């Protein structure tokens, strides 16, 4: 069982990343809180050692993405429709950011993941492939397809 200090450390280190992954997939803060807590609970119960901090971070990214996917699968069976996340976040975002994020959120789920991991977390394709459990070539083609879609929506000079 993990210590309080260790939990605080991983909370500081990965909370923003987990939160952003949730943001890319989930529609409201209640779902976000559920998934966010679930990710950390998984860490609490995970008793294998990590080889390095990088390994630990990749583990958090993968678990967060999977938790979101699972949650969406569960949410798809729900009757009520959740609030739009972007509405809740709008107050902290400027127009430019909102526009970009809206474009990102309009991408299919798999593209959202590669875009985030590549452009925000700076993971190379080979790492992304490992985190998502996909082939490196798949990641490359998703990345280039996602870029294309974003270019269509945001114009040429988005990156």
């Amino acid at each position, binding site marked *: 069982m993990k210590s309080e200090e260790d939990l605080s450390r991983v*909370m500081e280190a990965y909370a923003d990343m987990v939160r952003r992954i949730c943001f890319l997939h989930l529609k409201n803060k209640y779902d976000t809180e559920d998934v966010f807590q679930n990710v*950390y609970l998984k860490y609490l119960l995970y008793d294998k050692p990590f080889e390095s901090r990088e390994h630990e971070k990749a583990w958090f990214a993968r678990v967060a993405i999977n938790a979101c996917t699972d949650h969406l699968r569960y949410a798809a069976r729900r009757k009520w429709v959740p609030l739009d996340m972007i509405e809740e976040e709008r107050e902290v975002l400027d127009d430019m950011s909102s526009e970009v994020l809206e474009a990102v959120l309009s991408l299919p789920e798999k593209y959202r993941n590669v875009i985030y991991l590549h452009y925000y977390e700076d993971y190379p394709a080979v790492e992304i492939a490992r985190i998502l459990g996909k082939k490196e070539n798949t990641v490359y083609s998703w990345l280039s397809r996602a870029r294309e879609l974003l270019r269509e929506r945001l114009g040429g000079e988005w990156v």
Partner: protein
Amino acid sequence: MNVIRDSMKEIRASEELKQNTMEYLRVQKRRARLKRIRWYAFAAACICLLLTGGGYTVYIRPVSYISIDVNPSVELGINRFGRVVEADAYNQDGRDILDRVPLKNVPYLKAIGRLLGDENDSGYLTEDSRVFITIISDRWETMLEEIRGDEMSEKYGAQTYTSDLASREEAHQYEMSFGKYRACQELSQFDESVTMEECHEMSMGEIEDKIETCKGHGHEESDGSYEDFENGGSDENYEDSGNDEHNNDNGGNESHGGHHDHRH
């Protein structure tokens, strides 16, 4: 410019979210600890149950048998801890004794002592009667030594033998104790005309007398001698009937010594 990075900069985990999650994790930790404690308690309870159940099974299972034949024929089942867990009589005299003498859970030497003491008091043990103690056990050497060293067995000049589980089963088919059955087998070595049924009706004293008589032929000089008998026939007899030769050597000689003491 990385617009994606810039656009997401402001998306952060709020302090509230972090604090809520830390609190949630604390609760989960306590719950997991409680669960673990409950699991340990449950496991401990299971182990206790198994131990008491298993211990009881071990306790009530006989691992050795002692047949005590004077005239009353009694078989005792002895558990791993050397205590009597079964007592069966193979004739009316034996049944009478078992009704009178409590033997359950008593250490086997004490049980033999009680049986012999009672038989002495109730007149079964006379000058002419003989005590035969026959053992089936993996640790027969120790048991024989203990029995021979026992005050009561010595006092009544008990003769000790060993047998085996197969003979015990055969004996029970004839409704005899395995101690008596062993004596009958010995007799049949000398006198083939004697059937088990006839033997069944004889007392242990009669069987031994007959063996002695048979042995006595050509040994008039001897005193119906057990030693002669021992050297002449019994060993072979024992070997034939699948019993332990070495054991018989030990058991026979000393016990017969005891027997002589008793008679003379």
